[in-house]
């Protein structure tokens, strides 16, 4: 049974709530009363539950199976975290309640901040960024604020070509010119080329470590030293922190700012595209410029939340501003802290080790059949990268990915990083069992054999999914972005026309 659109089954006079009919009479709306219909369809509660339950069954999630999206870190989402986030003292408190009535919530922020600082070996943390990209922006703005504070108007940010798209977009958004850093043939930043480019115009270098080829940047400390010597700052994209949490602290490698994707490393749910949460840890040099609200460790070792009200008290008056209306993603903080406390310092180290072990196991279980361009570069970290080398002429990475869908799997990340042709980036995470990996390897090997043999049926895969291949070109060429009522057959009433002009 296909599930129709809400707009095809709902009616504007149906409702799934029981509220009183408005009494009418005078009001205080200042003459702005709505007179036109809005056109919002409603459903009774049974119909609503069924509509969304059915829709959900058109989705694939980590609860259903292995979800090997490289760089996205699809790991198990513990249900304890969901339960904790719903405790009334967290879910049912307002961000503007008097501080004395939210002491426990602030303790959550502080406890989490404390862990993030300790795990990264940094000095302070800006908790408010709403997602990874927002955190990047926060970090780059800290760097710009620090440079401006010393009257240094540098204009360039260096970004490796293999970086996440958010890196250059962020630097540009913050008003910088973006220049590429080349990579070595083994998939790492070219230290010599980088050094050659450094100079008084370079504000910062943005490095992803472990990088998007799944490799650890061996020269990280040397890079940091060189950048610092040239008067710039080092931004580290922390999207892949899950590979090294508890094993190495970015602060020890000279990083000045790094965002942490709580949904990746600390398993807050992705929810079909968000919400994320991207706290940014900062070095001593950048900490004074962190935006409000901000969390800092004071001299006595305690951790304090700093807002506009108490910025002076904590000597945090150089904050570059505010990135969002309230305190940040509190609902994600409770989940992340719950996850961290569950694992503890020992468990988090095990997380990194098992994630890396799983990735290397996949790499070595597949590299006889799939080309691993950086296979000889040493062990991978949390993800394994392959190219489409060896596929039959007319079979693409996309075809292989869609073929995997027919095997019951979500595909890996495709065509990223851009430095590898037809890239396939596979990240197993630490929450997959060996049995699950073995089953996946066998499925992927079978599809890869077909790709090498030029099996034409791959080109029309998937065959067994809720939909066959969707026409993305049509969607972009003639965008239909909102429901519009079909022209009504004569005599039939139509639902109110789409609102607006």
């Amino acid at each position: 049974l296909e599930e129709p659109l809400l707009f095809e089954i709902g009616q504007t006079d149906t409702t799934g709530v029981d509220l009183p009919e408005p009494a009418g009479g005078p009001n205080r709306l200042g003459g702005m009363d709505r007179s036109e219909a809005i056109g919002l369809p409603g459903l009774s509660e049974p119909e609503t539950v069924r509509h969304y339950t059915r829709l959900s069954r058109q989705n694939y999630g980590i609860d259903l199976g292995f979800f090997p999206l490289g760089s996205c870190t699809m790991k198990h989402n513990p249900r304890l975290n969901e339960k904790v986030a719903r405790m009334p003292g967290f879910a049912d408190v307002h961000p503007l309640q008097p501080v004395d009535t939210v002491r426990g919530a602030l303790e959550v922020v502080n406890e989490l901040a404390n862990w993030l600082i300790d795990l990264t070996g940094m000095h302070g943390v800006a908790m408010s960024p709403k997602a990874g990209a927002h955190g990047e922006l926060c970090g780059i703005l800290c760097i710009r604020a620090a440079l401006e504070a010393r009257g240094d108007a540098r204009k360039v940010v260096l970004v490796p070509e293999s970086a996440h798209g958010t890196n250059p977009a962020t630097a540009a958004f913050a008003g910088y010119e973006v220049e590429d850093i080349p990579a070595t043939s083994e998939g790492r930043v070219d230290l010599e080329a980088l050094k050659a480019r450094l100079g008084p115009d370079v504000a910062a270098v943005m490095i992803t470590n472990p990088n998007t080829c799944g490799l650890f940047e061996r020269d990280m400390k040397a890079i940091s030293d060189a950048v610092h010597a040239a008067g710039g700052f080092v931004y580290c994209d922390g999207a892949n922190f899950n590979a090294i949490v508890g094993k190495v602290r970015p602060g020890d490698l000279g990083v000045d700012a790094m965002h942490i994707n709580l949904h990746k490393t600390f398993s807050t749910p992705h929810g079909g595209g968000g919400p994320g949460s991207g706290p940014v840890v900062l070095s001593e040099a950048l900490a004074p410029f962190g935006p409000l609200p901000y969390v800092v460790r004071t001299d006595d070792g305690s951790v304090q939340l700093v807002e506009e009200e108490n910025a002076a008290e904590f000597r945090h008056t150089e904050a570059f501003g505010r990135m969002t209306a309230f305190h940040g993603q509190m609902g994600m903080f409770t989940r992340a802290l719950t996850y961290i406390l569950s694992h503890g310092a020992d468990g988090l180290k095990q997380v990194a080790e098992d994630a890396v072990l799983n990735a290397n196991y996949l790499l070595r279980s597949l590299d006889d059949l799939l080309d691993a361009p950086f296979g000889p570069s040493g062990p991978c970290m949390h993800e394994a990268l392959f190219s489409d080398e060896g596929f039959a002429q007319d079979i693409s990475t996309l075809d292989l990915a869609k073929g995997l869908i027919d095997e019951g799997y979500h595909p890996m990340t495709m065509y990223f990083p851009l430095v590898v042709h037809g890239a396939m980036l596979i990240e197993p995470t630490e929450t997959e069992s060996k049995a699950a990996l073995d089953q996946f390897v066998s499925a992927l090997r079978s599809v890869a054999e077909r790709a090498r043999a030029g099996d034409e049926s791959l080109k029309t895969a998937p065959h067994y999914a809720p939909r066959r291949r969707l026409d993305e070109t049509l969607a972009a060429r003639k965008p239909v972005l909102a429901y519009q009522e079909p022209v009504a057959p004569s005599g039939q009433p139509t639902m109110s026309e789409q609102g607006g002009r």
Partner: protein
Amino acid sequence: MRYLPLTDTDRSEMLAVIGAPDVDALFADVPEEARLTGPIHGLPMHASEMAVEKHMRKLSKKNLAAADAAFFIGAGAYRHHVPASVDHIIQRGEFLTAYTPYQPEIAQGTLQMLFEFQSQVARLYGCHVANASMYDGSTACWEAVAMAGRVTRKKRAVLSGALHPHYAEVVKTMAKFTEDEIAHAKLALQPQPDNDGLISRIDDQTSCVVVQYPDILGRLPDLRQIADAAHEKGALLIVVNTEPVALGAITSPGELGADIVVGEGQSIGVGLQFGGPYLGLFAVTNQKHVRQMPGRLCGETVDAEGKRGFVLTLSTREQHIRREKATSNICTNSGLCALAFSVHMTLLGEKGLRQLAMENHRLACIAADRLAKMPGVSVLNESFFNEFTIRIGRDAREVVRTLADKGVLAGVSLGRLFPDADGLADGLLVAVTETTSEEDIETLASTLEEVLS
């Protein structure tokens, strides 16, 4: 470790396949001097689910939950009743644990939901197209200002003084770096919004005018006049709404001339959550502006068999394709909150939304009338929806704290929202929703009377 399936036997077998002597060999690229040798000193070790739950419950109980107080706080986040079925649906593993729908063939659930969500938001805002959501209202507000700059190729934004101060602060913070100019009026405690003052600041260099509706004091500006003035100078009108429930009672910004409508969607389905995650809404009235929009868009298409389906589209605007030329660096949306919003809005439907809005307004009128009768208290607003400003003749920050000790969360003092402004200190913003009982209103009035006397 309950979340880690590998056994020690598994680990040994896997290391053998890899050809590594131990797991540390896999970290060979990490410089030895940086490698941590054991768990970080001073941090606690792993704990059972029961122990962690107990710890978190203890922290939770240190907060005064809204349900346990007489509650009147708003100012950009509102407490509404969220039906239990909403929370049930967002916890379905297929929604909760899915990724961004980059593989549309196995993500039609998320995609159809987003398409429905976009349609709901567009209709609610009286707009042509809405995106698939952003971080929150304040960041959506800045994205709108930035988009107006791209559309008009001008760099001066005029902000109403009655815009939420945190929103204004976010805009100003970002503008510092993009070197946009921000003209921001001062807020004065007047019964009506200062439309004339706002209009007088619009000039030929103005990319956009940003007006909140209802505004931070709860007042309802007539947007038509501002729209006309802005359009005359070639500027866009950006309307900010922080209380979507209001739009069940008042005419939508799109119908009144807004070009971009942004806002906070938290009221519908999401809950308070101490400030996040919330739900940024973003919509435009002019189809031509679609390609300048930030954020994800979901569009309709067909599959190879001609069946209707949905995909993320127009991604050439986005960072993962355009990199430094993207319309925004935004990468995630607020998908799960968008789902909650969409489910709640489906349960409401137009009928329920209108009933909900009028019930909010009815109770707010009762509260305003009750407070206006008190000695030493006056109601500022001539118009309001479910939130209004009272003046209490003394510094409201102190009064709010005193009331909190008595279990009454009385509202937000203007002194907290505008710490640097003059003449606002005796203002108190009072929000009333369907969750407020008439008994709560009486508790507020009598406790306030006690404190003020």
